[in-house]
């Protein structure tokens, strides 16, 4: 008998010790696992709790609950870290990267999914190399290239740099997805003398919505949270992304908890809200590769 089945309450008439025992054990196991999950979440609880404490409270009672919800830290952070501007910047950059990655990725995946030959294999190899390469390996030359092309401190530059970083993932996502689309769908269109582009646009593209949604969420998480690219490629105060705003606001030496925790919460909240809303999609996407 699985633990799950015993959870649903049954009416017990008389003494059924076996059942009671099993139910007790089941409640215990649920309790233990939930407690472990809660322990895993403690650092996040700690982060939120600390953000509402005054400097004195943090010094005197480092783990205690705040006496009252003190919003002063947030006020200070909001007024001096350029939060709203940085959120808009991050959103703009993220959306642009998603557009580039989705279009270029889906297009590139189409021939790779349909033609099996050496050309495809070479392109796939380059993509695999792109997936495995740490971004600090390419960051210096990218900086030099950007300087020579005048792309430093431009939105266009950072969007293209991010796109190059995330395109391999997009190509893999779309290739496996398109490969699963029956070729018969295309053949009908081909008989009607449709061009490759028309087939891609009218037959293939409409089917890509689910994988596009998952991919977009992935790209969003990575672009939003990335920190080395915008740190090096953007210096204009008005172009900073959220994570750089957090990083610059908190500083790197002599960290002040009344700055650190509200900034950490503010930096994480937009994505955590997204996660709350799209949780199922993200979880489905996170495991898409594993199920096959």
């Amino acid at each position: 008998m699985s633990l799950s089945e015993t959870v649903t309450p049954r009416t017990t008439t008389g003494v059924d010790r076996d059942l009671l025992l099993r139910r007790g054990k089941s409640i215990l196991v649920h309790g233990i696992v939930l407690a472990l999950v809660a322990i895993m979440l403690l650092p996040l609880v700690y982060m939120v709790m600390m953000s509402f404490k005054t400097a004195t409270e943090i010094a005197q009672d480092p783990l205690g609950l705040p006496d009252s919800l003190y919003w002063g830290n947030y006020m200070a952070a909001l007024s001096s870290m350029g939060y709203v501007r940085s959120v808009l910047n991050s959103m703009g950059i993220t959306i642009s990267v998603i557009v580039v990655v989705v279009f270029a990725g889906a297009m590139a995946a189409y021939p790779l999914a349909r033609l099996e030959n050496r050309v495809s294999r070479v392109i796939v190899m380059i993509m695999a190399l792109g997936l495995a390469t740490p971004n600090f390996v390419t960051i210096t030359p990218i900086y030099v290239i950007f300087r020579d092309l005048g792309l430093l401190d431009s939105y266009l530059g950072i969007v293209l740099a991010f796109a190059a970083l995330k395109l391999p993932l997009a190509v893999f996502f779309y290739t496996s997805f398109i490969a699963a689309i029956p070729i018969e769908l295309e053949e009908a269109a081909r008989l009607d003398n449709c061009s490759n582009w028309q087939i891609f646009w009218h037959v293939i593209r409409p089917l890509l919505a689910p994988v596009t949604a998952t991919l977009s969420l992935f790209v969003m998480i990575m672009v939003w949270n990335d920190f080395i690219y915008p740190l090096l490629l953007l210096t204009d105060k008005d172009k900073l992304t959220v994570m750089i705003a957090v990083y610059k606001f908190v500083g790197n030496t002599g960290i002040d908890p009344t700055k650190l925790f509200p900034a950490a919460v503010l930096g994480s909240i937009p994505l955590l809200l997204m996660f709350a809303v799209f949780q199922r999609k993200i979880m489905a996407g996170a495991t898409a590769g594993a199920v096959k």
Partner: protein
Amino acid sequence: MRARYSLYLFTLPALLVIGLFFVHPILLTFDMSFTNFAGIGEAKEVGWRNYDRIISRDRYLREVWLTLWYTVIVVSALTVTGLFFAAMLHRLPLIRNFSRAALYTPAMMSFVVVGYVWQFLYSPLNGGINVALRDLGLGAWEQNWLGDPSIALYSVAFTQVWMFTGFTCAIFLAGFAGIPEEIGEAGRLEGASSWQRFRYLELPLLGPSVTVSVMLTTIGTLKTFELPFILTKGGPDGATRLLSIDIIDNLFGQYKFGFASALSIVMLVIVLTVAFLQNKVLRDRENAS
């Protein structure tokens, strides 16, 4: 046939972006690794001198081992924690979805935020962990988590494991979901305990999930520099100075672009070798069983 090849025109936008901002930079890195380029001014060819320096000094060899050791710790711990939570949650459908999402939450956060929060948790005096230990009467266990060279690496690894346990758990849960119901059923009828079913029925069938999880977390861990960068900057006493941290330090601390490029190429070779070997070993084992 011509018409078929014209299909490759579709790859042009992607190849253009990747060519300009990935392939070209890699080639430049390779180029720069044979110079003493310092960011500005002339780059002088120095031949193999950068590589000579890397090979002839113990410290870089140590960093390579440290990087591999760190990856081994993180990947094995992530596999165990992910498997543990997945095996439990697989048996508890009532709380499965909630817990899976809850465990995944840290992976949604930035390394910057996670690094800062844990830096504070680990701090020796008023840090959350030491205070909690004191409050629980375990004051003897207090540590200078990031300041003690003998444990700093494990503290950083612990944070990374905390961050990505939800990720491996999600992969394994998908693996569990792919195991036919009848197998667990048969085990139960035979009177197999929960542990026996896991060990002898489920685990052998989770091979593909283990492969995916180990490969993804290995590459991911080898690629990280953010956590040690924020938590310890490679210290104390070089205890967390991974190869990646040395590269970042050479680039942005000392502007030794040429030397950092050589280190980067070494790093790239390591990542690709590990990925290739792992792929081969894990796939072979999967095919054999």
